[in-house]
C-alpha cells in the first residue's frame, strides 16, 4: 500500500510539475496520492495484462511503481521547468495567503475525518469474508484471477462459454485487491477491506479539503458531515469489496476538482496541478466501473461547458483520463466483450420502443430507493436550490451550473440504463419483477454520486454565496463574450456604471479601462 501511495505521489509530481504537498497542501497531497496510486496501479496492471505479461508484482509492476515513486523525489525545479510562483501555494489565488489559517483548519478537520473513518471501516470490516453476489461473482473473482492465475487468463477474462459475468468491466479495483493478494502471498480479504477503508478515508480528506477551498471551512464541515452520512455509504458500501465506493470516490473527487477549476478566485491560480488531478481522478472513475465512464464524461463535458478560458486544459485532462483506459477498451473490443447495458439488443429500436413505457416506473423506483431520499433528502434538495440562487446572485454561476449538470445528467443516464436493460415490455410478467429487483439492489449504490452531490450542494452553494465572486466569474456569459471580442464587458451605453468592478490583471483593470467604464 505504501508503494501505491508513493507511486501516486510520483505521478502527481510529474503531472502537476510541482511537489504535491506544495501544489495542493499536505492533506490533499496525501489523499490525492492514494487515488493517483490506485489509478496508476490499475492502468499499469491492465496494460501488462493486455500485453500478455504477468499481473503479479514482479517483474514489471513493482519496479514500475518504484520508479514512479522515485519520480516524486525529483527536485522542485528540474531543468526547463518554469519557475514556481514566488510565494503561496498553487491552491491559493494570488494574494490569498492570508487564508492559509482557514485552509489549515479545514484541512485538519478533513484529515481527522478521513483518518477516523478509514480506521473505523478497516477495524470493522477486516474480518468480513466475501459473501455478497457481486463481490464474488464480479470483483473479487477477477482480483483473485489476476493474483493467482497471474494475468488476463482467457478462460476467465475472454471466453464467454463458462458464463463469467460482465467480462467487460474494467480492472482498477480487481487490480488493487490482486496486488495486495500478491504481497500477502494468498487471497486476502482483510487487505482488500483495508484498501476500501483507505479509499473512503482519502475521499473524505480530499472532499473536505476541496470544499474548504471552494466554500470555506464551515461549509466544508457541513458538507463533510452530509457526505459521510449519505445513507448506505458507511452502513453497507464501506463493508463490501465492490467497485461502488471506488467509482463514487473518483467521480465525486473529479467533480469537486473541476468545481475548483471553474470557481473564482481559484480561476486566477495556475490550473495545471488541478487539471492533472482531474485527469487522474477521471481515469480512476473510468477504470473502476462501467458507470464511471459516463460519470467522468459528464463531469468533463460540464466542465468544458463552463470553464471558459480553460477549456483546452479540461479537454486535455479528459482525453488523458480516457487514454489511461484505452488498453482495456481496446482489449474489450478485440474480444467482443460487449456491455450489458449498451449493446445491439438493448439499443435496438424495437427493444427501446417496448421498454420505454417503463420510464415512469423506473423514475418512481429510483426516487423510492434514492440514497437519502427521505424527508431529509427533500429538505436538502430544497436547501440546495435556495443556496444555488444565492450563489448565482453572488456571481458563482459556473459551479452551480456544473453541479446541476452533473446531477441531472448522471441521474438521467442511470434512469436510461435501467429502462434500456428492462427484460421486456410491461405486459411481460417477468420484466416487472426483474426490474424491481434490479432497482432494489443497485439504486442505493449506483446513485451515490448524484445523491451526494445534491446533498453537499446545499452547504457548498451557501458557502459560495458568502464569498462573492469578483472579476471574470461574476460576469454574465454575454459580458464575457463582449470581453473576448475586445469590448468592455461593463459598458452600459456610455453611462458610468456603479456596478463596474475591477478585474485585476485583465485588460479591464483600473489602469486600462476607458472613460466609459472607469471605476469609481
Amino acid at each position, binding site marked *: 500500500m505504501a508503494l501505491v501511495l508513493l507511486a501516486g505521489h510520483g505521478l502527481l509530481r510529474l503531472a502537476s510539475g510541482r511537489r504535491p504537498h506544495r501544489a495542493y497542501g499536505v492533506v490533499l497531497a496525501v489523499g490525492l496520492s492514494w487515488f493517483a496510486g490506485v489509478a496508476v496501479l490499475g492502468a499499469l496492471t491492465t496494460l501488462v495484462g493486455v500485453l500478455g505479461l504477468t499481473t503479479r508484482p514482479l517483474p514489471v509492476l513493482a519496479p514500475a511503481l518504484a520508479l514512479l515513486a522515485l519520480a516524486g523525489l525529483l527536485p522542485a525545479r528540474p531543468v526547463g521547468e518554469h519557475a514556481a510562483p514566488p510565494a503561496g501555494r498553487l491552491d491559493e489565488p494570488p494574494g490569498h495567503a492570508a487564508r492559509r489559517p482557514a485552509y489549515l483548519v479545514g484541512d485538519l478537520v478533513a484529515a481527522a475525518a478521513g483518518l477516523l473513518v478509514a480506521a473505523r471501516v478497516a477495524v470493522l470490516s477486516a474480518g468480513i469474508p466475501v459473501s455478497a453476489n457481486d463481490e464474488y461473482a464480479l470483483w473479487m473473482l477477477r482480483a483473485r484471477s489476476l493474483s493467482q492465475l497471474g494475468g488476463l487468463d482467457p478462460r476467465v477474462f475472454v471466453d464467454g462459454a463458462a458464463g463469467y459475468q460482465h467480462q467487460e468491466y474494467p480492472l482498477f479495483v480487481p487490480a488493487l485487491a490482486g496486488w495486495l493478494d500478491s504481497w500477502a502471498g494468498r487471497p486476502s480479504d482483510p487487505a482488500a477491506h483495508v484498501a476500501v477503508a483507505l479509499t473512503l478515508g482519502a475521499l473524505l480528506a480530499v472532499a473536505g479539503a476541496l470544499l474548504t477551498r471552494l466554500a470555506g471551512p464551515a461549509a466544508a464541515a457541513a458538507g463533510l458531515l452530509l457526505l459521510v452520512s449519505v445513507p448506505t455509504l458507511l452502513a453497507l458500501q464501506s463493508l463490501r469489496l465492490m467497485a461502488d465506493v471506488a467509482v463514487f470516490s473518483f467521480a465525486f473527487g473529479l467533480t469537486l476538482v473541476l468545481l475548483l477549476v471553474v470557481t473564482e478566485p481559484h480561476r486566477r491560480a495556475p490550473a495545471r496541478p488541478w487539471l492533472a488531478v482531474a485527469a487522474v481522478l477521471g481515469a480512476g472513475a473510468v477504470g473502476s466501473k462501467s458507470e464511471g465512464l459516463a460519470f467522468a464524461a459528464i463531469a468533463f463535458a460540464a466542465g468544458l461547458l463552463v470553464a471558459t478560458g480553460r477549456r483546452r486544459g479540461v479537454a486535455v485532462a479528459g482525453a488523458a483520463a480516457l487514454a489511461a483506459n484505452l488498453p482495456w477498451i481496446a482489449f474489450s473490443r478485440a474480444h467482443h466483450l460487449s456491455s450489458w447495458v449498451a449493446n445491439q439488443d438493448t439499443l435496438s429500436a424495437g427493444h427501446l420502443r417496448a421498454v420505454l413505457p417503463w420510464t415512469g416506473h423506473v423514475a418512481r423506483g429510483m426516487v423510492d430507493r434514492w440514497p437519502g431520499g427521505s424527508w431529509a433528502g427533500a429538505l436538502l434538495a430544497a436547501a440546495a436550490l435556495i443556496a444555488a440562487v444565492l450563489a448565482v446572485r453572488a456571481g458563482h454561476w459556473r459551479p452551480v451550473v456544473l453541479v446541476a449538470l452533473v446531477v441531472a445528467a448522471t441521474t438521467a443516464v442511470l434512469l436510461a440504463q435501467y429502462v434500456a436493460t428492462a427484460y421486456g415490455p410491461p405486459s411481460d410478467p417477468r420484466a416487472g419483477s426483474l426490474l424491481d429487483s434490479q432497482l432494489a439492489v443497485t439504486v442505493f449504490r449506483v446513485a451515490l454520486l448524484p445523491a451526494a452531490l445534491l446533498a453537499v450542494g446545499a452547504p457548498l452553494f*451557501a458557502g459560495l454565496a458568502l464569498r462573492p465572486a469578483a472579476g471574470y466569474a461574476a*460576469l454574465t456569459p454575454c459580458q464575457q463574450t463582449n470581453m473576448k471580442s475586445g469590448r468592455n464587458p461593463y459598458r452600459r451605453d456610455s453611462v458610468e456604471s456603479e456596478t463596474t468592478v475591477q478585474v485585476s490583471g485583465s485588460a479591464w483593470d483600473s489602469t486600462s479601462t476607458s472613460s466609459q467604464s472607469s471605476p469609481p
Partner: protein
Amino acid sequence: MRAGRRPSPLVVGLAAVILAGAVAIGLARLPGELSDQSRTAAAARSVQRVGSIPVLAPGPRRTAFLAYVRRAVPPGESVRIVQPVTALSPLEPRRAGRPGVCGYSVSRTTYYWLVYALESRPSTCDPDARWTMYYGVRPGPLPAGAGAHRFADGYVLVRR
C-alpha cells in the same frame, strides 16, 4: 447582489440557516449509519469458515466439499461444474449451452459462488475436462480410466 461586494445580512442569514440545517441533518443521520454499520459488520464477521471458505447459504457440509475440491484440484486447472438443472434464467446472456453444465440453466447465484470458491481453478464447459465437480447431481457412468471421490450423495469429484 453586486459582484465583489460583501453579502447582505439577508444572504448571510439564509446561508447560516442552510449550513445549520445541513449540520443538523448530518448529525441526525450519522448515528444511525454508524449503528447500522456496526451491526452489519458484526453479523458479517460472525460467518463460519471451512478452511478458507466462508459458510454461506450452501451450509457447512457442502462447503466442506468445496474445500476438499480445492485441495484436490491443483490451482490453474479447469473444473467442469455440474449442477441440478433449473429453468433458464431470463438474465442468461448465452444463446445455447448444455443444461446443468458450467452455469447454464442452473441456479446462477450458486454457480457464481462455486466458481469463486474454486478461484484460480477456472470453470470450463469442456466435456473432456480433467476435473468434473458434481454439485447436487449424481454422476452417470464414469468414462474409462476415470476416478471418482464421492464426498456425499450427489457431491462427487471426478478425475479423468
